């Protein structure tokens, strides 16, 4: 008797019907005076209580404390014939504090991340706009349009512009197209690859294409492609002569 009473952890002696035969002082402090174990077990933990009724085991259950609070406990039951000892160990609430701190750190990092992401998106938007403006389509007259290209003729420039340029050309009902390379700096291989695809698309749309303003450094990039109907000239003129004829 005295032995159970002085148990440091809340301890009960129960029978198979889960009647409380005896409880420790610590159990009384934590859960009040109980006659049935079920009284302190949350309804939504009953399935586990049934398990404990049948076998010796340790399970986690939500228990109702003397302060009328629902709290998680690890409950161990040891059966000895028709009687069992039950001990309840609080599941450490320090866990929650730790978790809270980890979560806050995680959020702080993430917030920095979210802001960076936003900035990155802004920068990308700006770049796209810049690229779009680096190859506008200008109407010279009802039949003729001009695309002056600016900056580097690279993958990004062609990616951002080629579809919309082809569409504008088509929708504008133009026949002649001048593409002006005067303000083009460097040309990249991927850029020129896409440029050639762009020309292919335009040729499908029956465009008459004249490339003007080629600098010597650009020539090697343009030389080996087989768009026979494309003409090259140093400036915009009515009659164009082919650069490599």
């Amino acid at each position, binding site marked *: 008797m005295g032995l159970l009473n002085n148990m440091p952890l809340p301890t009960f002696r129960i029978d198979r019907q889960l009647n409380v035969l005896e409880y420790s002082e610590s159990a009384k402090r934590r859960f009040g005076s109980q006659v049935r174990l079920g009284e302190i077990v949350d*309804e*939504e*933990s009953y*399935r*586990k209580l049934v*398990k404990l009724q049948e076998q010796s085991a340790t*399970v*986690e259950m939500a228990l*109702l404390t003397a302060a*009328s*609070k*629902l709290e*998680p406990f690890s409950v161990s039951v040891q059966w000895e014939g028709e009687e069992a000892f039950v001990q309840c160990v609080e*599941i450490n609430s320090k*866990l*929650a504090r730790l*978790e809270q701190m*980890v*979560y806050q750190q*995680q*959020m702080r990092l*993430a917030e920095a991340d*979210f802001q960076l*992401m936003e900035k990155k998106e802004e920068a990308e938007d700006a770049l796209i706009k810049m690229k779009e403006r680096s190859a506008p389509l200008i109407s010279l007259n009802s039949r003729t349009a001009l695309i002056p290209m600016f900056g580097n003729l690279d993958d990004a420039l062609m990616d951002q512009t080629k579809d919309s340029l082809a569409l504008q050309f088509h929708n504008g009902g133009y026949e002649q197209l001048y593409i002006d390379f005067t303000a083009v700096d460097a040309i990249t291989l991927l850029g020129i690859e896409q440029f050639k695809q762009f020309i292919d698309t335009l040729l499908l749309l029956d465009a008459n294409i004249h490339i003007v303003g080629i600098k010597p450094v650009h020539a090697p990039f343009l030389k080996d492609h087989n768009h026979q109907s494309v003409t090259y000239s140093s400036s915009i003129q009515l009659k164009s002569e082919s650069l490599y004829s």
Partner: protein
Amino acid sequence: MNTETIKLANLMLEGAADESFSLLCTLRNEGWTSVDIYQKIVSGAMQHVGELWEQDDISVADEHLATATCDFMISRFHAQIKKQPSIQKAMFLCVEEEQHTLGMKMASFLFEENGWQTRMMGANLPLDHALKAAGKWKPDVICLSVTILYHLPLLESYVKTLETLPFYPQIMVGSRLLATYDLSPYCTPRTIFITNYQMLADWINDQSEGNEIGAS
């Protein structure tokens, strides 16, 4: 239960933050609405986690990991959404002792998606703190969340006290307990009860269509 829901529950139980986040993104790209993602997938997955605990298949520690993963995942997911600012304001809090915040957090995200300004006061907020905060910020709607049955008696004092604020806020209560219990004895006739996010989205829509808050 949806296979995606179970899959998400498993990812969250493993603490797989990136994978669970991309699962939500994939669904979004497939055309799922936020309402459905939060309701069918995220809420469903957390309920499944609860069932696993009830069946003794996982521990409280696992549940904590799943919760932290979930919390982070939804915050990250929501951060991608563009919001248009509006003048309407909603404040969110849990009654004292109540730690279950995920339900109201996703509700607050849905308010934000619809342009509302929100203040998340979090778990376990004593009534006098709530009163002070609401008095200062003057929200149009004060949203309360209760999960644990034993916290229901507290709800009454929160609803009744907050409703008497001079700017006459609308009180809204969201709770899983609404599925099995009648909460009206703990509330006032003006209180709105919300059981799921579709119902919430419909209510928010009604507001923007010009129906005055609180009009019934």
